Each structure stands twice: as structure tokens, then as C-alpha cells.
């Protein structure tokens, strides 16, 4: 294949040249997560000519993704992300092999999937996946580039590279999911994962071509509001290399679970007709009752939920409501993860959104 025109500007770099481009075209890279980080990384990896790129995600495109997940267009809403991304990247570079993996990464499939690749870019939006990717890479002795972003901040490092530290040298265990804000709760400025995803792609090129100082043994942290990059040294704890099996942290990932426990306004109004089946728990910090149509509930504050829940029989279905859907989401996560209360449902976006509908 003659790449003389497409890759001319990067081949001209003495660090790349024809040998470097040859390495790039032989490389096999898997991008785990096709959200904001993944889209940014992919949008440079594919044009650079990475020979084989795996694109993994188990989600479909949503409208709320579009402000930062730059591979997707409005017409892609509801399409599986790996397929929409593949379609877009194929148009950009038809010479490379793109493999969409529309599935959830799990302890059962991670090792099998990873062994067909040389390098993993971890671009998911949650800790359980970051730990799973790290652990699988330690077991297979392959490097992974893990990035993350929230608000106006982001960070990345290359882990398990040539005997360097692993992700567990930064964080020994996944943080308590109920303590950790996610981008869905805390928000994120699209450029931040854009910047971090691009840096992940750059590290991939450095590893593949064996040029420059790979970002291993140091965490690069970016504070966007200040415009500051900081480097934090990371040291290897040899204990973290001793991983013999993968642990599934799905239960610690309340965002994935939460989605399955949210119901829309119409569904909620229907369920209200059947008061026998549901215990309604209204959450609010002041004493003002929560109202919709001819219904009215006196709210309990969020911190009283653990106490209240002990008084509700286990078999009963619980319907949680609040004004904006934020507090009820927190309560559902608590019930699902801490109390293993599988029959808790919440009103998506709260009563305020329902009033518009009603």
C-alpha cells in the first residue's frame, strides 16, 4: 500500500520516518470505552494509520453525549457507539482495520479480548472498568494507558509499561462508588476529556514507535481552569504485580445499574394507579410536601433513607421521587449497592420534569 500522501507530514518527522510508520501500521490497539476520551483518542489514532483498532463499548449514543463525544452526529442517536464510531472512522481512513466490539467488558471476556492486541487505551467513565483493564493488562503483561476526566480536570498515565507502576499503585482499590462523583453528577467540560484522550493517543504512538519518554511512573494531571499541567511521581509497589484472577466490580458501578432502575414520567403516572404494589418514598430537604396533580407526599431528607428503608418489607417495590431526580438517584444507588434492594425504582429527572408532561 502506498501511504506516501496520507501520512507524508508525520513520516517527515525524524522520530517517525518510514520505519515508524511501518510500526504504526502493524500495531493493534484496543480502545475500551467510546465516550469522550475514546472519541478523542480514536479520532487521531485512526487517521495516523494504526493498522488494527478495536472499538469497545456497550452503550448507544445519547443526545447528552454529543457535546463532548466528537465522533457522533445527531443522526447517530440510539446507534451502538462502536458501530457509529467505526462508520465515521472508516470514512476517514479506509486503509485500516476497525473492529467494533459492542459488548460490556467483564472479568469473563477481558483476557480473551485483550490478547489479540498490543496495547489498551482505557477510556471508560468508571472505576470498575479501569481496575478490570489494569488487572487484565498486568496478567497479560501488556501496557495500558488510563485516562480520566471530571469537571475541568483530567489526568492520565501509562501503566504496566516495562516494569513500571500499575494503576493500583495510584489507587489500591476502587473508591466507594457512593462517595465518588461521576460526570453525570458533577458535569464535565467537553474539551477536558478531549485533551486527555488526545494525550492518550500520543502516548500510544510513542509506545508503538519507541520514541520519546513514555508517561510511565508519573501521572499527568491537568487543571483546565488554571491552564496548569502537573506531574506526580508514581512508584511501583511490586505487590500490585501479583494478580492471578480478575474481579468483577459491577456492583460497585451504580451508574450502569441505575439506568435500569429509572422510569419515565408516563410509566410513573401509570404505576401511581397501583398503590398496592409500590411504596412511594419522597425525598426532600425541607418540609414542603412534594406535589403532582392530586397527589402529595411529605418528604424525608436523603440522610434518613437508610433508617427509613429498614421499615419497608423486602418484597415491596419502592418508587423514589424527588424534585429534580438527583436525590432520588443517590438513594437508588444506595439501595442497590449497599442494601442490595433490587426492587427500587426512581422517577427520571424528578417531579419537575413530570409537571411539564402533566
Amino acid at each position, binding site marked *: 500500500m502506498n501511504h506516501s500522501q496520507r501520512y507524508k507530514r508525520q513520516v517527515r518527522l525524524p522520530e517517525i520516518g518510514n520505519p515508524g510508520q511501518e510500526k504504526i501500521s502493524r500495531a493493534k490497539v484496543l480502545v475500551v470505552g467510546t*465516550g469522550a476520551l475514546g472519541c478523542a483518542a480514536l479520532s487521531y489514532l485512526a487517521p495516523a494509520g494504526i493498522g488494527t483498532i478495536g472499538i469497545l463499548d456497550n452503550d448507544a449514543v445519547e443526545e447528552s453525549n454529543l457535546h463532548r463525544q466528537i465522533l457522533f452526529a445527531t443522526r447517530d442517536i440510539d446507534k451502538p457507539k462502536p458501530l457509529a464510531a467505526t462508520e465515521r472512522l472508516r470514512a476517514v481512513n479506509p486503509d485500516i482495520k476497525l473492529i467494533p466490539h459492542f459488548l460490556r467488558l467483564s472479568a469473563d471476556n477481558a483476557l480473551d479480548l485483550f490478547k489479540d492486541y498490543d496495547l489498551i487505551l482505557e477510556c471508560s*467513565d468508571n472505576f470498575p472498568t479501569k481496575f478490570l483493564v489494569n488487572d487484565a493488562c498486568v496478567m497479560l503483561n501488556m501496557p495500558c494507558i488510563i*485516562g480520566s476526566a471530571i469537571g475541568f*480536570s483530567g489526568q492520565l498515565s501509562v501503566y504496566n509499561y516495562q516494569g513500571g507502576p500499575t494503576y493500583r499503585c495510584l489507587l489500591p482499590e476502587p*473508591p466507594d462508588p457512593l462517595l*465518588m462523583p461521576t460526570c453525570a453528577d458533577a458535569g464535565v467540560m467537553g474539551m477536558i476529556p478531549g485533551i486527555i484522550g488526545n494525550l492518550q493517543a500520543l502516548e500510544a504512538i510513542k509506545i508503538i514507535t519507541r520514541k520519546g519518554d513514555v508517561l510511565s511512573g508519573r501521572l499527568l494531571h491537568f487543571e483546565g481552569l488554571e491552564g496548569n499541567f502537573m506531574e*506526580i511521581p508514581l512508584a511501583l509497589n511490586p505487590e500490585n504485580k501479583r494478580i492471578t484472577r480478575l474481579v468483577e466490580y459491577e456492583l460497585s458501578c451504580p451508574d450502569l445499574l441505575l439506568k435500569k432502575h429509572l422510569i419515565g414520567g408516563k410509566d410513573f403516572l401509570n404505576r401511581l394507579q397501583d398503590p398496592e404494589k409500590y411504596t412511594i418514598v419522597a425525598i426532600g430537604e425541607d418540609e414542603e410536601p412534594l406535589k403532582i396533580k392530586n397527589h402529595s407526599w411529605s418528604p424525608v431528607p436523603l440522610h434518613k433513607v437508610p433508617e427509613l428503608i429498614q421499615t419497608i418489607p423486602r418484597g415491596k417495590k419502592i418508587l423514589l421521587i424527588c424534585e429534580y431526580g438527583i436525590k432520588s438517584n443517590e438513594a437508588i444507588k444506595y439501595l442497590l449497592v449497599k442494601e442490595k434492594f433490587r426492587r427500587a425504582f426512581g422517577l427520571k429527572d424528578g417531579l419537575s420534569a413530570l409537571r411539564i408532561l402533566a
Partner: protein
Amino acid sequence: MEIKVKLFATLRENRGKEVSLELKEGATAEDALKKLEIPKKEVAILMINGRDDDPGKELKSGDLLSIFPPVGGG
């Protein structure tokens, strides 16, 4: 004694990015965390004067504490 604390990412919410703390002599970084109401579980990296350090170590007047939370979004 007075120390300086630099906070990063989500730890800045309701606290600001830099705070001065008045602590008793002999106080440790853990005491500083308590005063700032930052649970230990919300700390991924704690540096004293730019170096990764033991949170139980005694602080000196003028020390700079940098605290980073785990960042997991994407």
C-alpha cells in the same frame, strides 16, 4: 502554625483551590484532612511539599499540602 493546602479536581467544590489552615503544633496531614472535612477515602494522592508522603507525618509551619481525589470520569 499555619500551612497551605492546594486542592485539586472535585475537592475544590465548596472549598476553593487553595486554603490556609491554622493547625496545632505537631498536627499531621491527617489532622488537616479532618479540618477540611475530606474523608480519607476521597484522597488518591497526598503530597507534602511536592512529594508523596505519609499522611501521619508531623507537619511544619509553612508546609504545602497537595491533595488529589480519585478521578474516574471520562
